């Protein structure tokens, strides 16, 4: 109320100063012209005329200043292009002459003013990252440093007003450059989207575009993604290069070795030597000074004391006999298995006879006591006359029908009883499954390793895989040059069936295989395919899941695959026996 009146008095427009004054005077005379906020002033807050005059003088001064400032800068710009870098608050100092001094001072003043103006200008409020060519009427062409959004002040009319109180026309900047137009559109869209999502949640049934936009769908944006730099870590390519070099060296070494071997003819030894380094990390035998089991009974950490006699700790040697905890053997059954009782035929018959007799006797008792009704007479066509003699004479048809009905009922009961005891298809399937499945947790898993020269025949591969699945066996198959290893795990019956499949049913000899040797590269004459059982035995638990084929490009990969399952020794055996066989053939 009072504040607004004061504010109004402070309002100033550099252009319409006189108008403003006129307005003010008018308002003073028309106190109750119905304008908002104009109320009776308190005595304390009434401004004296002197104060008012003062303020008017101030305002005029400011107007003059402003006019001057706005007129001068364009002229200055032609002389001092340095001014274009506005962000530098430091004024570029010009060397000595007085006129230059004055100019410098003026430059500094102007800079400050321009900065302040730009800071409060409308463009700052819009916060656009524009290339800074502002065409605000009357203002400079300099680039503004960081257009911070200044406070948006509105006067009573609702017009935007800057910090000093002067009305500003909010200028809409319309870019002319295509890139800038696009940028502006993007901005607008962004703000729209931001606003739209909020509004949609609040206003039900708003007709904004975002209702038809599904955020779940990842639609390709109409704009192209910006191509950015992909930075690599320092030294990455050096590492890759060194790795490649090492690999090349190793390969060269290996080929050299094999060449030399062929020349000197020590085949088997080198073949084994080639196999050997691949069998993981064999550390060189360590030299130690003291075995740990001796160190327990020694006083110091050496075998002999100073006098050359073994320095024994006498207290460790006693006549105590240890009884360690006895561990249960893995194949020991946890609960004693009860032997099934086998009866002879005579015993079985006697057993059935006695139980049936007992049941019948009991039933008879109940009938005699009257607890149960006596059973119906079992009438057949043959004893019809005997049982139902009188009634039969009177009405034979009915009686015969009755008897036949009884017979039919008896037959139906019998058949129903049979049918109810019969296994359903599902039960039959389950029974068959149960027969095939074997419990391998208590007695250990039987494992077999087969080695095949060539596994390229798809029908044989299918047979291997499907039989393993149907017999509920686990395992894995590795395809590698001419050492294809198939490992299967299961119970003894399953193993027997699988062995018959691999060694008898599948005719491996039908296939002729061309095996390309590792070192020569030229293919050998065609030989017949074959399959050998490398090993069969038992282990504590299964190491594999369902049988799947794995193609391995090198021995190292194959060994690694087996090592992951903990059974690299299976691969070692298969591979070494293949190598040895090869050398023996030669």
């Amino acid at each position, binding site marked *: 109320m009072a504040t607004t009146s004061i504010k109004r008095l402070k309002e100033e427009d550099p252009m319409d100063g006189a108008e403003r004054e006129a307005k003010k005077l008018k308002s003073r005379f028309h106190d109750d012209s119905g304008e908002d906020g104009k109320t009776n002033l308190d005595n304390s807050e009434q401004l004296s005329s002197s104060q008012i005059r003062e303020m008017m003088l101030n305002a005029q001064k400011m107007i003059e200043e402003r006019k001057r400032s706005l007129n001068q800068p364009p002229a200055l710009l032609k002389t001092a292009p340095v001014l274009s870098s506005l962000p530098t608050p430091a004024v570029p100092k010009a060397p000595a002459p007085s006129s230059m001094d004055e100019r410098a001072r003026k430059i500094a003043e102007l800079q400050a003013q321009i900065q302040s103006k730009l800071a409060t200008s409308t463009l700052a409020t819009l916060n656009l990252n524009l290339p800074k060519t502002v065409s605000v009427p009357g203002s400079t062409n300099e680039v503004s440093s960081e257009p911070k959004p200044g406070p948006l002040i509105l006067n009573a009319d609702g017009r935007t007003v800057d910090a000093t109180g002067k009305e500003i026309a909010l200028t809409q900047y319309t870019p002319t450059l295509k890139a800038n137009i696009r940028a502006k559109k993007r901005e607008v869209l962004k703000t729209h989207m931001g606003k739209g999502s909020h509004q949609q949640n609040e206003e039900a049934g708003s007709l904004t575009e975002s209702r038809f936009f599904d955020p779940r769908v990842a639609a390709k944006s109409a704009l192209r993604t910006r191509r950015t730099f992909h930075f690599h870590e320092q030294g990455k390519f050096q590492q890759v290069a060194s790795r490649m070099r090492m690999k090349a060296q190793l390969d060269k070494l290996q080929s050299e070795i094999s060449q030399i071997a062929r020349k000197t003819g*020590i085949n088997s030894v080198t073949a084994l030597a080639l196999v050997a380094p691949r069998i993981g990390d064999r550390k060189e035998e360590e030299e130690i000074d003291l075995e740990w089991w001796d160190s327990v009974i020694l006083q110091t950490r050496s075998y002999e004391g100073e006098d050359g006699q073994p320095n024994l700790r006498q207290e460790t*040697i006693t006549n105590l006999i240890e009884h360690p905890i006895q*561990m249960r053997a893995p194949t020991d059954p946890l609960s004693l298995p009860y032997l099934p009782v086998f009866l002879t035929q005579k015993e079985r018959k006697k057993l059935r006879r006695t139980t049936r007799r007992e049941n019948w006797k009991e039933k008879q008792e109940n009938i005699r006591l009257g607890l149960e009704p006596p059973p119906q007479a079992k009438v057949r066509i043959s004893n019809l006359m005997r049982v139902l003699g009188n009634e039969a004479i009177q009405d034979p048809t009915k009686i015969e029908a009755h008897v036949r009905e009884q017979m039919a009922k008896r037959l139906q009961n019998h058949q129903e009883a049979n049918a109810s005891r019969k296994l359903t298809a599902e039960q039959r399937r389950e029974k068959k499954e149960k027969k095939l499945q074997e419990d391998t947790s208590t007695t250990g898993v039987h494992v077999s390793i087969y080695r095949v020269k060539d596994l390229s025949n798809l029908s044989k591969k299918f047979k291997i895989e499907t039989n393993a699945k149907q017999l509920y066996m686990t395992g894995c198959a590795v395809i590698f040059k001419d050492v294809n290893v198939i490992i299967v795990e299961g119970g003894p019956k399953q193993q027997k069936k699988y062995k018959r499949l691999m060694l008898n049913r599948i005719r491996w000899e039908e296939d002729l295989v061309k095996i390309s040797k590792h070192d020569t590269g030229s293919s050998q004459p065609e030989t017949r395919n074959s399959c050998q059982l490398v090993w069969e035995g038992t282990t504590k638990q299964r190491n594999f899941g369902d049988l799947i084929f794995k193609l391995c490009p090198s021995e190292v990969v194959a060994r690694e695959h087996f090592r992951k399952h903990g059974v690299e020794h299976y691969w070692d055996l298969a591979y070494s026996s293949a190598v040895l066989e090869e050398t023996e053939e030669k």
Partner: protein
Amino acid sequence: MSLLSGFAITIDDGEIRRHLRQLGEPVTLFGEGPADRRIRLKDLLAIHGNDVIDRKKEDDREVAKQEKDQSETTWYHEGPESLKIARLWLAYYSLPRAKQRLSDFKVEMETPESTRTAKRQEMVKHMRNMNIMCSQVGDGRPISFCQFSPSGNLLATASWSGLCKLWNVPECTLFHSLRGHKCSVGAIVFHPQATISLEPSELNMASCSMDGAVKLWNLESEEPIADMEGHAPHRVSKVEFHPSGRFLATCVFDHSWRLWDLEQGVEVLHQEGHSKPVYNIAFHCDGSVAVTGGMDSFGRVWDLRTGRCIMFMEGHLKGILGIDISPNAYHIVTGSEDNTCKIWDLRKRSCIYTVPAHTNLVSSVKFEKSSGQYIVSSSYDGTAKIWASNTWQPLKTLSGHDGKVMAVDVSPDGSFIATASYDRTYKLWSPE
């Protein structure tokens, strides 16, 4: 009538007697027949209640459980004074030998790597050329064991007929036969100094058999010079001499193994610890440690000086039948009924490799005696196989036996391998 019809008593006389004993009643009265006994049991059950037998069974079960709980901890008991004497002697014997071995090893390591690898390659080539040299019918019954003498010119075989024979090695002619056992002989072993420094009239050999008899022999007479009693009626599967020659270990089927001091003439140690019969034993070259394998699929390493079990070898699925320690003092190999051999490292106290050795059970494994560069394993699939001891890969398969191969041995100089088989023959193998 119908009250008693649901309650049945067995007709089996043996069970009726057992039930009566369980109830604490006299099993048979004067002049009582089986039918009368049954009626008496029926009356007793009617008096005491039908479930009295079950109740008694539960009590028994509880007592058994209490006993089992007691065996959940390691406990000790005092042995004879002679045990302490023996242990002290063993300590003083083994420590210098260990020191010597380690310094020898260091010296050996100083030879350049290339010479060592060259030697190994030589050995590999040697082994690859192993082939059958001679075969001889040993006996009328299957031959269960064979061992070379420490000098390498005699081979001892033991058979299921109870007869042990000594053969000259390259000629395969009978040298001597030893009569005395009444049933199948499990093993016959030479004293470490036999044929080298011992007199032929001294104790040279020991053998054990299925009825628990352990007999000591010399090279002259055909009768045993001594009998060791104390094992019967349990079967003794293996005897083994300590490297010093003073002690003799026996593996007994009462789940224990025993150590006998031949100088003091007593049994100094009766060691339990396996939950099933102990099948085989091997001594460390230093003389400080012994390793036993049992039918419970566990191997145990015992320190002979302190009497403790210092390593527990768990990993096999079925019983361990063959066991041996390498001359390099830290590799142990075990052969088992589950068709695999496992290699254990005594320094690391773990299993370092599993060799899927044969397609039937592995009956015996032996390290090469001088440097432990290869292992020979024999199996019931009729073959013996040679494996390199650095990579554990197969070097050669020695096939030729018709039946199961029951035992294998390597001669001390490495020139021969002998296999004894179920087909009543033994064969010698050597490189061509």
